[in-house]
């Protein structure tokens, strides 16, 4: 009997050990540290809820949380709008369909850090050149005001992720039976009616997948934030992930940063659990 279990644990051990040491233990330690005055070196002693009270009173964290929320709402909307539009476009029978998919998806293969640098060039130098050419002053210094910095981030994110979301919508759109659409056409439904009454209900699950994927990706964004605006000007475009990093490794307030990280975890987990709940509910209904 022992021997029959041995293979089981041997097969499991490496992955399970890695998960425990890399994710579960740090999470447990992190939650514990967030209630202490841990600074990475000395033995921690309890401070209770002190950090949690302080972090909601801290302007930097509140600003980051607010910016992240605004950014997430806007980019979720833009990404899904463009993603679905592109998917509808490239699923038409066109000669260029395949090539277009390849092009729209391309940004997703390149790391967010590099994409942010490329767009830094576009927003700083190219926008300035275009502004000079057409005589629009507003195109100068796009990364040096909070408002344009916000839109710069939203544009970068939409450009990158629309192609990714497009791929998800395509996989559902291609699952819509052709006979159904043809039948509707014969019955006299126009293309809008066909979309609204036939395609739309069948791709509903794609909305849930895409919505939550973009929601958590936008909320957790770090690389693009770091390389495009670096949080500037004056931390006005700093997102939560970057704020946590700075608190921990620039200001060296480890326990305080960890308390912020716990809040961050709770928000992200809540987003994902809502998705799981909605999916479960729909499965029951179907």
């Amino acid at each position, binding site marked *: 009997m022992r021997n029959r279990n041995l*293979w*089981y*644990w041997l*097969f*499991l051990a*490496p*992955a*399970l050990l*890695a*998960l425990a*040491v*890399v*994710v*579960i233990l*740090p*999470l447990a330690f*992190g939650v514990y*540290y967030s209630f202490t005055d841990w600074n990475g070196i000395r033995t921690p002693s309890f401070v209770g809820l002190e950090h949690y009270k302080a972090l909601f009173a801290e302007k930097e964290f509140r600003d980051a949380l607010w910016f992240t929320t605004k950014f997430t709402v806007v980019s979720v909307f833009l990404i899904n709008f463009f993603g679905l539009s*592109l998917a509808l*476009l490239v699923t*038409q029978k066109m000669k*260029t*369909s395949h*090539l277009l998919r390849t*092009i*729209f*998806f*391309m940004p*997703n*293969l*390149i*790391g*967010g*850090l*590099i994409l942010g*640098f*490329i*767009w830094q*060039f*576009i927003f700083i*130098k*190219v926008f300035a*050149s275009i502004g000079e*050419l057409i005589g629009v002053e507003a195109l100068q210094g796009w990364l040096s005001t909070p408002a344009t910095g916000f839109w710069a981030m939203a544009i970068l994110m939409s450009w990158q992720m629309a192609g*990714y979301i497009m*791929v*998800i919508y395509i*996989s559902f759109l291609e699952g819509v039976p052709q006979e159904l659409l043809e039948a509707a056409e014969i019955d006299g439904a126009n293309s809008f009616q066909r979309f609204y009454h036939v395609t739309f209900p069948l791709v509903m699950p794609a909305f849930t997948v895409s919505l939550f*994927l973009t929601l958590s990706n936008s909320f*957790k964004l770090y690389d693009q934030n770091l*390389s495009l605006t670096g949080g500037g000007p004056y931390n006005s475009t700093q997102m939560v*992930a970057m704020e946590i*990093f700075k608190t921990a490794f620039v200001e060296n307030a*480890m326990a305080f940063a*960890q308390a912020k*990280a716990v809040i*961050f975890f709770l928000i*992200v*987990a809540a987003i*994902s659990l809502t998705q799981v709940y909605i999916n479960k509910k729909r499965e029951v209904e179907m």
Partner: protein
Amino acid sequence: MKRKKRGKLILEILGVILALIWLSPFYLMIVNSFKTKREMFEDTLKLPDVFTFDNYVVAFERLDFLKTFFNSLLITVLAVAVIIVFSSMAAYALSRRGGKTSGIIFMLFVAAMLIPFQSVMIPLVSIFGKLEMLNRGGLIFMYLGFGASLSIFLYHGTLSGIPKSLDEAATIDGANRFQIFWHIIFPMLKPVSVTVAILNIIWIWNDYLLPSLVINQQGMETIPLKMFFFFGEYTKQWHLALAGLTIAIIPVIIIYFFLQKQIIKGVSEGSVK
């Protein structure tokens, strides 16, 4: 019929325009990477008078590109291999033995996907620092820890569709579990392995934050790490920065050109499940 044809033509044109907009950042990056500093200063929209490769020579050297590329390759290949081997084994064990224990362990792996990196980052660095594991070996182990969840999830889904009678028949023939897995089951998992490999390669190749915390030593930098320092040094010298960025993405674009179908399929499978 005629109206339909015209409608299609309008869509084709719209598609091409959108594609050009999508490609324009890359186009502007490449065109400007061939300019001199002075030309860049004058105008970023026109083509360079003379295409100069000087920027590339400098950027290639400052990025120490061959070495940096090799560093990225080494980390990515080893980490992805480790993830494929150990995730498929773990998923096999979980799906074949079943029972309450397996259910709990599987849930643990799945639940770990909810945890964002920033919420474990600080203790993680501290623990690995104390174990003196802030090196490449430690980094690969971390990639297994972060990557196992999704990979096990994907393998598990396919494994439940492979009948257990296969295993049983092999057991009667005298094969042990290792032989059964590696000779019979693993080859059948090839399509999932491709998906798992693609998803993890894209992630690890482009990852910046984790390696920046773990292997921030001279000579070990991966492409994103080196790019970060390089860019910081040359912010006022766009002609060099752009040549560096172009060099960094060329390998990815070449691979994408050859494997686009598999890559897009892998990504959509990985995110829809």
